């Protein structure tokens, strides 16, 4: 299951009730129990239902920000960044070592980590480029931006 595999990348454990999960074409959704009771409705041709978890494109899983928030609420890999880094990150930039206030969970090179602001709001996620606990050069990129919430603006750009 692509969703679970993705969650595991952050060394997180979240319980996703598979009975409440539905797949529509390449997109995954998590329903609530009330939705499930309306069985007939869900089997009809819906466009969106419940909590959107993410989609698969070219065999790759693209998480929704709902899913990232769910992972961030559990024990998982995360870095907390300062205000300036937060702003740059949501504009699509990478995270420099200097901007990281705290590392939670794995800081190992190659692992995935969520990026949070000081209010513990999840801004997106990235891939760790150097071991965060050993890294000395504060001006080097520490976490490569993979997805950030600025995507909401970018994805609708150009659409009327």
């Amino acid at each position, binding site marked *: 299951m692509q969703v679970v595999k993705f969650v595991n990348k952050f060394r997180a454990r979240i319980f996703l009730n598979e009975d409440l999960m539905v797949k529509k074409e390449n997109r995954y959704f998590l329903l609530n129990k009330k*939705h499930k009771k*309306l069985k007939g*409705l869900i089997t009809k041709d819906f466009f*969106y239902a*419940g*909590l*959107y978890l993410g989609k698969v494109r070219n065999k790759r899983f693209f998480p929704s*920000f709902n899913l990232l928030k769910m992972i961030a609420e559990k024990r998982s890999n995360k870095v907390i960044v300062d205000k300036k880094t937060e702003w740059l990150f949501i504009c699509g930039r990478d995270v420099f070592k200097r901007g990281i206030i705290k590392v939670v969970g794995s800081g190992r090179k190659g692992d995935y980590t969520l990026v949070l602001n000081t209010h513990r709001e999840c801004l997106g996620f990235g891939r760790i480029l150097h071991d965060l606990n050993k890294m000395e050069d504060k001006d080097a990129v520490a976490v490569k931006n993979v997805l950030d919430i600025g995507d*909401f603006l970018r994805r609708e750009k150009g659409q009327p």
Partner: protein
Amino acid sequence: MVLDACAAPGGKTVQLADLMRNTGVIIALDFKRRRLTALANHLERCHVKNTIVYHLDARHASKLKVRFDRILLDVPCSGNFVTDEEWFSKRTMNDVERNARLQRAILAEAVKTLKEDGEIVYATCSLEPEEDELNIDWAVKNLGLRVERINCYGEKALTEVFGRRLDDSVENCRRIWPGRTQGFFVCKLKKCGVQDASGKIRKQV
């Protein structure tokens, strides 16, 4: 169960979900597929989890075979000059009439899917009486609806339009002239009759 019959891009769907504390169920419809993407993005961004979206014409809402407690009809309308400088040169009376007809069809379908004790909120951002007071007067006289009093700023709606006297209850609607906002019309409707098998409304006494 709440129906948001003309939902995209979803500002009000999100507000409804918030009022419902993300519980219960909202069914959101829109006719234009392209606008559903904006609605979906809105729902994701605001972490809404109680909504099911269908690409469906509100005039066919009864196909869903669901009866709703509340229905929001934020119907497509002619808009007004506040948000569109060229409004006067772009619209003709035919456009207004066409929209008014579509709005009546959406209202009539919504009544079919409303529970007996349910409520409809009808809103437009048009200032044209054809899309506002005249449609509500028609709904009161033909769909067995009554207009409830609401606690909302704005002025009492018109009860005399183009020399025609409308049902007194139409004054319970609110006409919000451009100023604090861009200009709106809003009202709350309840059933006061029962529909028989042929779809005719019998008034309850």
